[in-house]
């Protein structure tokens, strides 16, 4: 940490301060320094860039750039800011992609949403947004959404024209005798989900992959600014509904930090409990997705059977099975009744009864090992360079887990360890998913016991303790909050204005974005059969890919 500060002191900075336990927050005065600072930080071990988040301050006529650098090994992080002019022509900054490969798509996103131009970026095309948003800046505060929506037919025509142009373009440049072609793997492909991979292939061999994303872009980051702080949770949880609890936890922690509210012990344990239930529901689907990609649907069905019990618990707790909206600034939304824990016990028993079967048939499956143990290998170096996180990073042997690195809620009292594999192949990612399922079950048991003991001893009052009051209006401030989401680290960067009733800017860094960036790297030179395997093993959800 000291070392980081020393490096930053060499430059012209506005302030350098400690932030939380693992962060150094600094603002550099001169935006042209950014590339040099970043390179110095990289040499010092901060090799990963979590995300790049511009904030549009229209009153001060500036765009504030936020860079989040992380060191996955020693857990030191740096939050770097700098201002750039807001006028479209001067809104430029040096690109970090030449040094940080993981910055690539994040810079493209900032370019499409805010019109920030990155100098020296190798491939600065718009991403996520459809063609009718090209050369516009949808996330800037002065963007007129109503005017854009007014002529829907024209917008659709733009998209259609662009698609036809591309169709014509595809077969050009390919010789008469060549067997090369462009396959559209998605968005209506049986295994793709709403994502389109433009697969350049020669017969069965893949030459390269260009993912086209944004088919489920809901502009969530813009949507939350139209809602109040409580209403925003329903937008945040739609990051991906498979694991909706943990994304809400990330958001409400940022709100609580700005409001300076400390939640009760009971609410903290409830967040652990609900979060792990949600993680199970996501991981169970993830394992199913991996095998679905190999043409075997049994795992998905068996896991769905287990998952039902946990969804039953979520339903009796919050009234909804999938989109629960159960975490609120100030705690958790509902109190806990005793019969709910009994229902949870049914799920735990179900898992314990089934897990040996699943392990024997599907985790140790020889055909799966034959397919997957040599495919899609991600080395620890690649994890750091491409900013990978979560299950994908851990299966490559990188010990990273926000629950342990920067404990939130009651995770500091939970007994747990990193679940890691060695080789980082597709098989390892499946095995890791299963072992994390077991770990989550273990954490649930701990949390359940703790809550039961607390209630029995009168320490917790389950019907009153779940909420503390959070003021409706928040002061000016900003906060970041990290949570270990089921797919990896989610970083929420929340900015509020004076007497705010709704967020001014919320940046959600979601893991699938980085993982999808890897596809071309992993699949070039492989065969068509490996596309679903590797795509399935990366545990990608289009919800948090597009946001």
């Amino acid at each position: 940490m000291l070392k980081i500060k020393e490096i930053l002191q060499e430059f012209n900075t506005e302030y350098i301060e400690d932030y939380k336990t693992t962060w150094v927050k600094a603002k550099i005065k001169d935006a042209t320094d950014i590339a040099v600072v970043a390179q110095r930080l990289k040499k010092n071990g901060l090799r990963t860039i979590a995300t790049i988040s511009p904030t549009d301050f229209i009153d001060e006529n500036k765009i504030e750039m936020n860079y989040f650098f992380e060191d996955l090994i020693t857990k030191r992080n740096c939050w770097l800011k700098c201002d750039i002019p807001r006028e479209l022509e001067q809104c430029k900054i040096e690109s970090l992609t030449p040094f940080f490969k993981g910055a690539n798509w994040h810079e493209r996103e900032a370019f499409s949403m805010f019109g920030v131009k990155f100098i020296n970026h190798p491939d600065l095309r718009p991403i996520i947004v459809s063609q009718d948003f090209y050369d516009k800046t949808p996330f800037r505060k002065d963007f007129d959404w109503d005017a854009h929506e007014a002529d829907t037919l024209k917008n659709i025509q733009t998209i259609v024209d662009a698609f036809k142009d591309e169709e014509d373009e595809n077969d050009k440049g390919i010789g008469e005798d060549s067997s090369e072609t462009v396959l559209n793997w998605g968005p209506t492909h049986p295994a793709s989900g709403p994502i389109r991979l433009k697969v350049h292939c020669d017969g069965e061999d893949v030459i390269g992959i260009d993912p086209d994303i944004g088919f489920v872009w809901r502009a969530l980051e813009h949507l939350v600014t139209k809602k109040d702080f409580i209403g925003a949770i329903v937008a945040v949880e739609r990051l991906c509904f498979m694991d909706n609890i943990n994304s809400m936890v990330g958001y409400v922690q940022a709100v609580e930090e700005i409001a300076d509210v400390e939640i009760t012990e009971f609410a903290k344990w409830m967040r652990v409990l609900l979060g792990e239930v949600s993680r199970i529901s996501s991981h169970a689907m993830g394992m199913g997705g991996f095998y679905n990609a190999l043409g075997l649907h049994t795992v998905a069905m068996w896991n769905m059977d287990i998952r039902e019990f946990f969804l039953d618990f979520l339903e009796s707790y919050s009234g909804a099975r999938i989109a629960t909206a159960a975490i609120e600034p100030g705690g958790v939304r509902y109190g806990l009744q005793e019969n709910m824990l009994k229902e949870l016990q049914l799920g735990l028993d179900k898992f314990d009864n089934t897990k040996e079967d699943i392990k024997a048939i599907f985790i140790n499956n020889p055909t799966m090992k034959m397919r997957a143990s040599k495919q899609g290998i991600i080395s620890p170096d690649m994890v750091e360079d491409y900013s990978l996180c979560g299950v994908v990073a851990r299966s490559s042997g990188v010990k990273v887990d926000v629950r342990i690195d920067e404990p939130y809620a009651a995770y500091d009292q939970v007994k747990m360890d990193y679940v890691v594999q060695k080789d980082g192949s597709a098989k390892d990612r499946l095995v890791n998913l299963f072992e994390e399922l077991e770990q989550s079950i273990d954490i649930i048991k701990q949390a359940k016991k703790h809550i039961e003991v607390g209630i029995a001893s009168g320490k917790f009052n389950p019907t009153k303790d779940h909420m503390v009051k959070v003021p409706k209006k928040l002061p000016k401030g900003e906060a970041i909050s990290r949570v270990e989401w089921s797919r990896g680290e989610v970083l929420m960067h929340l900015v509020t204005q004076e007497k705010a009733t709704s967020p001014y800017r919320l940046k959600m860094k979601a893991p699938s974005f980085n993982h999808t960036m890897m596809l071309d790297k992993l699949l070039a030179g492989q065969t068509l059969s490996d596309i679903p395997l590797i795509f399935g093993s990366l545990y990608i959800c289009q919800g948090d890919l597009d946001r």
Partner: protein
Amino acid sequence: MEMIFNIVVFPGILYILLWTVALFWFFRKFMAALHKRVGPSFNGPAGSYQTLFDLSKLLTKESITPDGVNPYLFSIMPILAATIAIVPTAVIPWTEYVTVVKSEYSLLALVVLIGIEPFLLFLTGFGSNNKYSFLGGIRVLTQMISMETAFFLSALSPALLFGTLSLTSIVEQSSFVSFIILLPGFMLYFIALLGLLDQPPFNIPDAEQEIVYGFYTEYSGTNYFLLKLAEFAEFMAVFAGAATLFLGGYKGLLFDGYSFLFLKMLLIAMLMMAIRAATPRITMKQMLNFSWSYLVPLSLLNAAWIMFAKIFLIGGVS
């Protein structure tokens, strides 16, 4: 009169339709049990009308012919495929008395008719003017070439053992001893059968997650129904072939009859489904490697074993 009955009812059109509908339903129900699901349950007892309704739906739906294909090739292929798939039923001895075409060379006819089928499926893929269909067609062809060698070699092992190409006399001569001797041949036949019928782990030609639906992709309505009928008729020919060649056909425990043949075919179907529920798909390269480095040498070895058994175990060359 008998001929007309054979063509229209048993073992002809009606029987095959009934088989297709019933087996489809059975596959769904059996798979559902393995998946811990319920499967079709609303229409009829245990959802048994469901496939019947599906059939009527497919027959009444529009058959879409895509732009830029040869419509004749596109539409004639499903008819041809279904016809060729149905013909083998004529040479199989269903019971002691029912064999439509009695021939000295019925085994040869069976094997050849089963062997033609993938060519037709390749042509359906080729004629669809779709990248996925084309890839599927090529995959069918590749898989067929590598699987049929083993299939033929193992299918001919009973012929070697009994010294006849007539299915009727193979069934007549079969006994418990011959079943034991033919067991390795049966296993090889079963593995090759999985490859031939595009079943997991060899469902490479219609790998949904890779190339959508392979050669089926552009087909809909009646044409799709005909292709499915061809697939299920081929199931029947191959299952019945297995039961006849290795498991003693219609021979039963206390009495002989069609029900025993049916039971044997059902057992093979169940084995196939169980493998389907527990095995992911392998890749093209792995399939080629498996077929040429293991399956084909093993089936040659099996032929040697049959000859050895014939000479030294059951009394020499007659």
